[in-house]
Each structure stands twice: as C-alpha cells, then as structure tokens.
C-alpha cells in the first residue's frame, strides 16, 4: 500500500508576523503571540524575580548592573541623535551630588530628593551642554569628557559639598526591597519608555538628525532645540541613577565623577550592540556580572576583562543583541502544504 505523501515546507515565524513594516504585527495564533512576547517578557520576568532568590552580595550586583544599564540607555539615546558622549559620569555625578546636597543641607526626604535631582540634574546638564550641541562627533565627546573633571576640581579647590571627603551619613532607603526594586523597575521602565520614544515620530526626528542634520534643518526643524531636549531626557535618566546611588550608599563623593561611569556604559552599549536600547541594556546585564565574577582573578582581573571586551567586539561587531535577534528571526516552524 502506498503511503500518502505529506508535503511540508518550512516557514519563518518572523515573515508571517511582520506586515510590511517593523511596527505592524499580524498575529494569527497563540504561537505567534508567544513568539512576539517571549523575548520581551522572559528577560524582564527573570530580572524582576531574581532578587527574591538571591540576596546580599548578588543583589548588590543586580543593583549595580541596573545603574550601569540606565547610564548605557542614556548614552544610547544621545548616540541615536548623533551626539557621541563620553560624559555619562557628568550626568551621574550631578544627580548624585544634587540628591546628596538636598539631603545633607536641606534635610529633604528621599521622595523629594530623587525626583528633584532627576529633573534638576537633567535641566542643569542640558543647560551646560546647550552651547556645544553645535559640535559633532569627537568635539562634542571632548567637551563632555572635560566637564566631570571640571566639576571635581571645583569641588576640591573650593571645598564645597564636603570637599575631598564627600557627603556622608545621608539618608538610606527605608527598606532594602524598596532600594532594590526602585532601580530594577526604573531600569525596565526607562528601557521600554525609550524604545517607544525612539519609534514615535519624535524619535524619528532625533534619528534623522544623526543621519543628516542639514536635511532636517531644511525640513523646518530646529535641530539644536531637539538636541537639547534629547540631552535633557538622557541626563535625567543618568541623574536618576546618580541620585539613587547616593541614597543607596548613603554617600556622595568624587567617585561619582570617575571615568568608569562614562566608559562602562559605553562598553556595555558596544558589546550589547549600538543602535538599539535593548542592546545597551543587555550589554550592561552581561558586563557588570562578568566584571564581578572576575574578582576571583585578583590582579589579572582588568587584563582578562579587557581581553574579553576586545574579543566580544571583534567576534560580534554587530553586538550580542543583534546577533541573538537575527538568530531568533531565523526561527522556523514546519507547516503542512495542502
């Protein structure tokens, strides 16, 4: 007896779901829903649930990764409108010192210091950098690199804001759960917030500025005011991280202006994949735990860390996120052909 031949063909789920553009989905089955939601929901669920299972040192690592993650997202927003920044530590430090000063000298509660430092830090940094948004590429980067050093020197020379000793004995979060979950929820909110911002028409204009600023000007858009707005958003995000860390460690000192806070987010974005917020977020979730894991190596820690960075960038120049995204889009199901 002859067996009925069953014809099958492979189908990429991606092709079936995406209709013409990246933002319009056609969802036909529970499988499709799972395909669309899984990469968004699963990592977030892991991040939200992890602190329930690990404690102490490990939850500190999660907090640190989220702080670097916020800085990396802030860097990515500036990069997407063509501003190459080396000054994430400026935004971070301004937020940290603002929250610290309000706590130390004005004795304001945490729920005032953090929001005010977030918006105030954003506004101050946008104001400081407004005159240089005309600069592009390496020239803008140079200015952002110098400003944190300038701030540090001013504090040191004039002995203001605690001088070389910093501001210590600041208010802590009322409990450790609020501490942990504030930064995790903020990180996830900013990640998805910026993602929807950049796909909106507003974000499209920002990306266009990076592409060709003269064409944007000839389309009747004041590119300088748009860049200052982007600076305000990015600086607010990083200032929030700074204000958070001030209350987390109950201390604000020079270390917040250190180059680490500028380089680590940049490295995270580069390893994770520039040009996407998810890449920057993923990069920091990988790099921070990695650098902690390498502590066991002692003196060789930085050498190995750098070697891994170089290897990652050489092996996957598109970034880990883009690589995973591509592989995920190649996911196929077998369907019967009738």
């Amino acid at each position, binding site marked *: 007896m002859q067996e009925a031949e069953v014809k099958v063909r492979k189908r990429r789920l991606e092709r079936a779901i995406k209709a013409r553009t990246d933002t319009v989905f056609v969802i036909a089955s529970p499988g499709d829903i799972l395909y669309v939601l899984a990469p968004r929901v699963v990592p977030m669920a892991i991040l939200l649930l992890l602190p329930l299972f690990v404690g102490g040192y490990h939850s500190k690592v999660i907090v640190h990764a989220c702080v670097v993650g916020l800085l990396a997202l802030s860097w990515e927003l500036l990069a997407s409108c063509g501003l190459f920044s080396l000054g994430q530590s400026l935004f971070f430090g301004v937020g940290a010192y603002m929250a610290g000063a309000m706590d130390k000298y004005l004795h304001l509660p945490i729920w005032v210091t953090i929001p005010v430092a977030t918006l105030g830090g954003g506004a101050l940094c946008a104001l400081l950098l407004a005159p240089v948004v005309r600069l592009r590429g390496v020239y803008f980067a140079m200015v952002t690199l110098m400003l944190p050093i300038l701030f540090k020197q001013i504090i040191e020379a004039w002995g203001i804001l605690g001088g070389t000793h910093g501001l210590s004995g600041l208010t802590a979060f009322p409990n450790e759960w609020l501490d942990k979950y504030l930064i995790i929820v903020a990180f996830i909110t900013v990640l998805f917030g910026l993602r929807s911002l950049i796909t909106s028409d507003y974000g499209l204009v920002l990306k266009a500025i990076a592409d060709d600023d003269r*064409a944007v000007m000839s389309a*009747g858009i004041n590119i300088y005011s748009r860049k200052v707005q982007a600076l305000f958003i990015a600086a607010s995000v990083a200032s929030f991280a700074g204000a958070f860390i001030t209350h987390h460690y109950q201390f604000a000192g020079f270390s917040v202006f250190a180059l680490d806070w500028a380089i680590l987010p940049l490295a995270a974005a580069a390893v994770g994949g520039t040009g996407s917020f998810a890449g920057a977020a993923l990069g920091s979730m990988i790099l921070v735990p990695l650098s902690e894991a390498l502590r066991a190596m002692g003196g060789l820690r930085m050498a190995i860390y750098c070697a891994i960075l170089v290897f990652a960038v050489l092996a996957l120049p598109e970034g880990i996120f883009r690589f995973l995204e591509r592989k995920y889009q190649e996911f196929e199901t077998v369907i019967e052909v009738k």
Partner: protein
Amino acid sequence: MSAETLLKVEGLGKSFGGVMAVSNVDFELKRGDFLGVIGPNGAGKTTLVNLITGFVKPSRGKVIFNGKDITGRKPYDIANMGVARTFQMVRLFHNMPAYKNLIIPLCSQRVRKLRGGKYGERDDVAIDLLDDMGFERTSNVPYKTAGSLPHGYLKRLDLARALALRPDLLILDELFSGMSMAEVAGVLPIIEKLNTQGLTTIMIEHRLRELFRVVDRVMVLNFGVKIAEGSPDQVMDSDEVKKAYLGVDVEIPRGKPA
C-alpha cells in the same frame, strides 16, 4: 494670479576667502512665477540657493521673503516661513523606509500650524504624497529603505520631502542631474502641475531643453554675476550668454516645443 512680490533679492553677495562666489545679484519673484537659473559649473548657482535658504550667511545684500527680511536667518526658520529646497546631492535619511523620510517635515512647526494642530496620521499623509510622486502605494516601494532605492526615486523622494513642508517657494537644485530621460519625463509634468496650481518655483538646471519647457523666465549667472535675465529666447540670443555658457557654435534649443 495676483502680482504680489514673494521674494526679493537685493545686492546679494558672498565671498569665500577672496573668491566672490556670488556678487551683487538682484532679482524679484512674484507669486506663481517660475524662474530658471542657469550658468556654467562654479557660477554660484548652488551658493545662491544656500544664501536664500540660510545655509550660508551672505557677506552683503538682503533677502526679503513675503515682506520679511530673512537675511542670515537660520535654515529651519526660513523653512518654517515656507521656503523649501531640494539638494543637488540628495540629502535623505537612508536608513529609514522611504515614507518615513517625509515624517520629518511633517513634524515641523509650519506643517503643524497649517494642519491646525492635527497630529495623527502623518504616515497616511506621507504615503499620499509619495503616491503623487509615483511611488505607488500598492507596491512595496514606499516601504523600502530609502538607501536601497534607485537614483531616480531618491531624487523624487527629495522633491517629496521639500513638498511635504507645503512651501510657498520651492527651490530645486539640479533636480534632474543623474536622472534618465524617462525619469525626467515622469517628474517634469509633476513640477509643471505644481506651478500651474500657483507654487512659486526656482529651478536650477543644466538640462536646458527640459528647463525651457517649464519656466517663464531665465536668469544666467557666470562667475557669481548675473549676466542676463529674461524669457528663454531673449536670454539665448544674448551674445554674452552664448560666449559664457554655451560657446558660440552650439545649436541652441529654442522656445517651448510643440
């Protein structure tokens, strides 16, 4: 057609170092005029466009648009007042889908004002406009990344981007350069139609046959100086123009073909 003056350029000049790229150029455009600007390479045509649209600050002279002095204003201010331009080398957002390129001008202050604060459906407006430019909405061309489109489409996309601003004055800087005959034949009627609908246009062009078909008036620049202005026939009869631009022995296309 009202005879109201839309653009007045007075004694406009620009020097780069010691070189006068444009010197002492005067002309006037009434609403609905169609002016062609011709001249040999390096005559200062593109500089003239840059001076009017604010991309280059004039060394001397005045530009008056719609009764307002716009000399030395920022390019985006001038665009918001209603001066749109295309670029000789297309300036587009190559990583975006073609229709998304038009969202940028649709986000401008001017369009927001003209549309009465209606924010939504920018995508629909963009697709409509592209459809008029020959990007058929039923095909996938409007959705393709701008960078992957052929040159003729890019030029039309650049034109669409300028038109999305709903300009009062449209300046086309060598729109036809690099286009095939067929592509030019596709675009020319669009421009003619826009002008008959009352859009004031300045067209810089090297392809004289096509230019003379559509313009009312031609201005000739040579070494930054205006050497002639008038109807295409008048200008082409001028000995100075023949010498400067075409060479005396060249056969000259005359008038609008039947």
